[in-house]
């Protein structure tokens, strides 16, 4: 508040001298459409605009009619603005809930060139055409113009505010909280419920969408427990704030009810400030998990449907009271009050007390109730039994045309029409899990039907609109919820409160209105549109909504849905329950998308896993690549190298001629122990493993139950009942899950213990003819790693500088190679040691690119071949598959479609023109065939430039591939404009005899 000045109030023509919960000692400056105004802490943008006499705040969606402020809450359909500017621009912000701060800037939206003079309002003249569903009947002639002309025009007119053009600069976060009792809504009911629950020592969370607790207790003038109701709020609030087991979340909307008594809520931590403080998020998403929930969300007032009922200056009666009582603003000086119920009628008192002149109380009921009669007697207000048929005035209300029962019509000058059509309990959260509301004829409203588990509803949300019933209901519900959650009840007396009446006689629409009578103001749906929908057969509630777009706007039709349903019932001569009911979808009010993402955006979208050599590789200037969550070195460029290809080729050549080092720690590693480990692995892998000798490793493949390859890797046996397997990087988690599934569900009788050891070991491939020489300098000399003592596929536990380590003689590159593993904390030290020891041999580090090149040169399969649709036979591993034992995938792997000899099978390719480049994803077509789907014979899975061969090479799946060596086929790649002749060759491009690997 440092920037707020104390120079004075400015001119706020509609601000009352006293009253309300605003701080008149501080003045806040704000702008609306570039013009500066002043308000006070405690104001909303709407209350401040009203205080300044601003009534025109927006234009409607379709017809661009002038619109003002209808409500004082989150149900607002009309007063939508763009709040803030630049990267923080927030479109469609309801002025009625935007808290005022110094420097706030807001602009009206969906108008051009200006709000008062909106050229788009010509749409209003075309309104005879633009009725519900008109899109579907038109814009079809000629067909070509839909996308060229009509749709672009529609899209230009579409939308309300503009999203920001830049990344949201603020942060969001998520949090989880647990409660014995969650109370949603902090009006009189919710406060009473929270108080009753908290006194039992239950853990209570109380949420309210407003900054100030109290709801109706601060919006209306009443007495509770002998105090003015707003004083009672302060007393209860203080008690709750003192209790360490109570968490009060202000500015927090519980927007959705989900399974397991989980509620989504969004806390607008910083929206009342010009910008969030350092380290403070803009908003926080809460996942609230509650043993019991008390829904005390109150009720929303319904407008009345009459002519031009959308004119600025037509306002809900409850909102009029809120502006007077909470904000010290009188929204009009000459007022007509139009109601069908007693509560609406009592607005006369608030207006009179605020100094406004009530020119008439129009009550649609044929006979005034006792309450209304008493009101007329005490205030002397002119009471008319009849209806307002139309609001007068072009941009704002200048009068009301009133038709008394009996037919006399009178026009009265006024600047405000306060309307009340009754109240809709806010039961949205009761329907999120599928509960159907039930109609109550006495209240003329839907009440909660079957409730979500562990929820109770109290107060106005349950149909108890009267204050004393709300308080009693709140206390009862709060106590019961605490007891249900295991706490001992504490008796809480119900405070005495002002007597009220909720008598109502329905009036769903005024007959023969003077002007368009709007039902859904934001989406410009009129009573006539509902008639049209009925005429065209769109009578089901959902058809009505979808055809007319009723209830689909940012207010979700909170002020529209029940009126619409009742009008449809009237037209069709059915009862309201027969016509249907309205079921809400989350969120209760719109939620910023950023809040639902929280911390997880930009680089924090997903965690990043760093391999043990990361720091060292970064020092070397490695280029990294995202591999799943891992960040792996892709290649290690050296000064003077022109491009990645030169670097990778150098790395490959170094491995083939000398020695290279690659961090392969990301491969999944699983430790498997137990007396039945051998049997277990035999059932998981397609090849036999029981015969694997201790101290040896073997290549293995595993299938899904449908006979398709799932993963491959090595299986090493460290002891009779101790195996250590590797998986591909991509499938590390999936394989452990699969093994747990097999161990716990398929074969629980097998005694086997499975532990993921991926992260325990930093593991490096040391590959190339000089690899043994290098390792002999690193491995402690007590270990014999000569070819005799440590042959191909040998494994062993060793030490490196006294540190326990493991050595595996495995090769992915086809060269003599080892994998050496040390506990991960030594990973950084080991790579430095290996590079240092290898210097004399010309060692280089290599990344995933060179790794890939060398495996393609050797015809080893990897991700592109293990794509979830290939069988072992497809990729040349058919011979490995055991025919004797049971293993996952054994039976279904024999289905005819999987053993069809025409299936594409793995084979190698080289370009006929050796200078040609190959690309993965090209399809194979016989040399003389045309490239069509019928002639498609497979596709290239992996390609590389092979420095060892001096040209590009590829692996691919070709129909009957292994039978076609020597044949020349086309590799067609239309999306990259290539069509290359390739020769079918053996998939092993380097050392086909496999001598090098054994040394």
């Amino acid at each position, binding site marked *: 508040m440092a920037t707020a000045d104390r120079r004075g109030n400015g001119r706020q023509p509609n601000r009352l001298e006293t009253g309300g919960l605003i701080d008149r000692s501080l003045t806040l400056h704000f702008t609306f459409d570039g013009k500066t105004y002043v308000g006070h802490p405690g104001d909303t943008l709407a209350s401040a605009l009203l205080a300044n006499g601003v009534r025109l705040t927006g234009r409607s969606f379709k017809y661009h009619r002038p619109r003002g402020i209808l409500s004082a809450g989150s149900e607002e359909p009309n007063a939508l603005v763009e709040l803030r500017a630049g990267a923080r621009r927030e479109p469609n912000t309801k002025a009625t809930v935007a808290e005022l701060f110094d420097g706030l800037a807001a602009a009206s939206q969906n108008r051009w060139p200006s709000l008062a003079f909106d050229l788009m309002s010509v749409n209003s003249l075309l309104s005879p055409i633009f009725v519900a569903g008109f899109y579907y009947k038109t814009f079809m002639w000629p067909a070509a113009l839909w996308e060229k002309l009509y749709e672009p025009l529609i899209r230009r007119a579409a939308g309300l505010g503009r999203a920001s053009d830049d990344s949201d600069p603020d942060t969001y976060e998520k949090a989880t909280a647990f409660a014995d009792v969650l109370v949603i809504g902090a009006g009189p009911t919710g406060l009473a419920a929270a108080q009753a629950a908290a006194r039992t020592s239950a853990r209570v969370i109380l949420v309210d969408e407003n900054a100030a607790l109290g709801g109706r207790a601060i919006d209306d003038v009443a007495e509770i427990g002998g105090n003015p109701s707003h004083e009672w709020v302060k007393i209860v609030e203080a008690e709750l704030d003192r209790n360490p087991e109570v968490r009060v979340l202000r500015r927090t909307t519980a927007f959705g009810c989900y399974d397991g008594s989980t509620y989504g809520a969004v806390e607008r931590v910083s929206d009342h400030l010009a910008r969030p403080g350092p380290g403070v998020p803009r908003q926080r998403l809460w996942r609230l998990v509650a043993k019991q929930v008390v829904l005390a969300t109150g009720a929303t007032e319904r407008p009345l449907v009459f002519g031009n009922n959308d004119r600025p200056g037509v306002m809900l009666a409850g909102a009029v009271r809120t502006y007077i009582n909470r904000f010290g603003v009188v929204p009009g000086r000459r007022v007509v009050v139009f109601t069908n119920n007693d509560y609406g009628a009592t607005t006369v008192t608030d207006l009179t007390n605020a100094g406004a002149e009530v020119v008439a109380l129009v009550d649609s009921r044929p006979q005034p109730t006792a309450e209304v009669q008493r009101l007329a007697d005490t205030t002397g207000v002119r009471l008319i039994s009849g209806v307002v048929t139309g609001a007068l005035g072009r941009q704002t209300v200048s009068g009301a045309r009133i038709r008394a029962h009996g037919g006399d019509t009178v026009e009265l000058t006024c600047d405000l029409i306060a309307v009340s059509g009754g109240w809709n309990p806010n039961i949205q959260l009761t329907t999120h899990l599928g509960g159907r509301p039930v109609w109550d004829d006495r209240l003329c409203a839907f009440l909660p039907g079957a409730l979500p588990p562990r929820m109770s509803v109290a107060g106005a949300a349950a149909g108890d609109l009267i204050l004393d019933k709300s308080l009693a209901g709140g206390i009862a519900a709060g106590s019961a919820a605490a007891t249900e959650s295991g706490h001992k009840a504490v008796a809480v007396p119900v405070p005495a409160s002002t007597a009220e009446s909720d008598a109502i006689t329905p009036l769903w629409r005024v007959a023969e209105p003077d002007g368009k009578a709007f039902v859904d103001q934001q989406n410009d749906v009129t009573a006539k549109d509902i008639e049209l929908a009925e005429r065209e057969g769109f009578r089901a509630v959902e058809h009505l909504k979808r055809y007319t777009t009723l209830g689909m706007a940012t207010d979700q039709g909170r002020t529209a849905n029940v009126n619409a349903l009742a009008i449809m019932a009237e037209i069709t001569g059915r009862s309201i329950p027969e016509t249907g009911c309205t079921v809400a979808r989350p969120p209760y009010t719109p939620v910023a998308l950023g809040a639902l993402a929280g911390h997880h955006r930009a680089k924090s979208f997903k965690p990043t896993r760093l391999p043990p050599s990361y720091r060292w590789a970064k020092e070397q200037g490695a280029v990294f690549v995202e591999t799943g969550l891992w960040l792996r070195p892709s290649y290690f460029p050296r000064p003077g190298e022109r491009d990645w290809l030169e670097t990778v080729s150098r790395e490959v050549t170094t491995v083939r001629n000398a020695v290279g080092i690659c961090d392969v720690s990301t491969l999944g590693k699983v430790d498997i122990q137990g007396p039945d480990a051998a049997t277990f692995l035999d059932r998981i892998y397609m090849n036999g493993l029981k015969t694997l000798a201790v101290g040896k490793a073997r290549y293995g493949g595993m299938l899904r139950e449908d006979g398709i390859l799932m993963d491959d890797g090595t299986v090493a046996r460290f002891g009779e009942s101790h195996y250590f397997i590797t998986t591909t990087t991509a499938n590390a988690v999936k394989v452990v899950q699969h093994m747990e599934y097999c161990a*716990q*569900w398929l074969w*629980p*009788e097998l005694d086997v213990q499975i532990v993921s050891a991926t992260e325990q070991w930093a593991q490096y491939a040391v590959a190339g003819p000089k690899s043994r020489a290098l390792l002999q300098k690193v491995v402690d000399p007590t270990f014999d790693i000569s070819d005799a003592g440590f042959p191909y596929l040998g494994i062993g536990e060793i030490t490196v500088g006294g540190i326990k380590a493991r050595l595996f003689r495995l090769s992915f590159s086809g060269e003599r190679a080892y994998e050496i593993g040390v506990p991960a904390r030594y990973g950084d030290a080991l790579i430095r040691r290996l590079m240092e020891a290898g210097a004399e041999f010309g060692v280089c580090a290599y990344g995933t690119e060179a790794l890939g090149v060398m495996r393609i040169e050797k015809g080893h399969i990897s991700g592109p071949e293990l794509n979830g649709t290939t069988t072992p036979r497809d990729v040349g591993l058919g011979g490995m598959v055991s025919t004797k034992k049971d293993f996952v995938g054994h*039976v279904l792997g024999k289905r005819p479609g999987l053993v069809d000899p025409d299936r594409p099978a793995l084979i190698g390719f080289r370009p006929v023109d050796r200078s040609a480049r190959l690309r993965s994803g090209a399809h194979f077509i016989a040399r003389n065939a045309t490239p069509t789907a019928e002639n498609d014979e497979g596709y290239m899975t992996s390609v590389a430039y092979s420095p060892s061969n001096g040209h590009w090479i590829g692996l691919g799946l070709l129909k009957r591939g292994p039978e076609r060596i020597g044949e020349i086929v086309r590799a067609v790649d239309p999306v990259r404009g290539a069509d290359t002749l390739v020769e079918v060759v053996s998939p092993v491009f380097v050392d086909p005899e496999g001598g090098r690997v054994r040394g």
Partner: protein
Amino acid sequence: MRIACPHCGERSLDEFLYSGDATVRRPDFASPTAMDEFIAYTFERTNPAGPHRELWYHAAGCHAWLVVTRNVATHAISSVEPARDVALAGKPETKDGA
């Protein structure tokens, strides 16, 4: 949705992975009608719109596989058992029934 893991207590949905029908049991690979049995086991589902027994994996928790009895129409969960216990209890029965 929240699932009460018998080992870890009640946890949110995002800790678990659903993995299909727990009412089907892997057939004997040596059965003369193994192919038909495996086809039915792997691909055919009753998929009822009411109470159902299904397999879940406590992926972000204790790594236990669980048999969850859940009403698929309402998401109400009536029991959660370790899959190992269910499987062991069911083993002889499967053999008898085969």
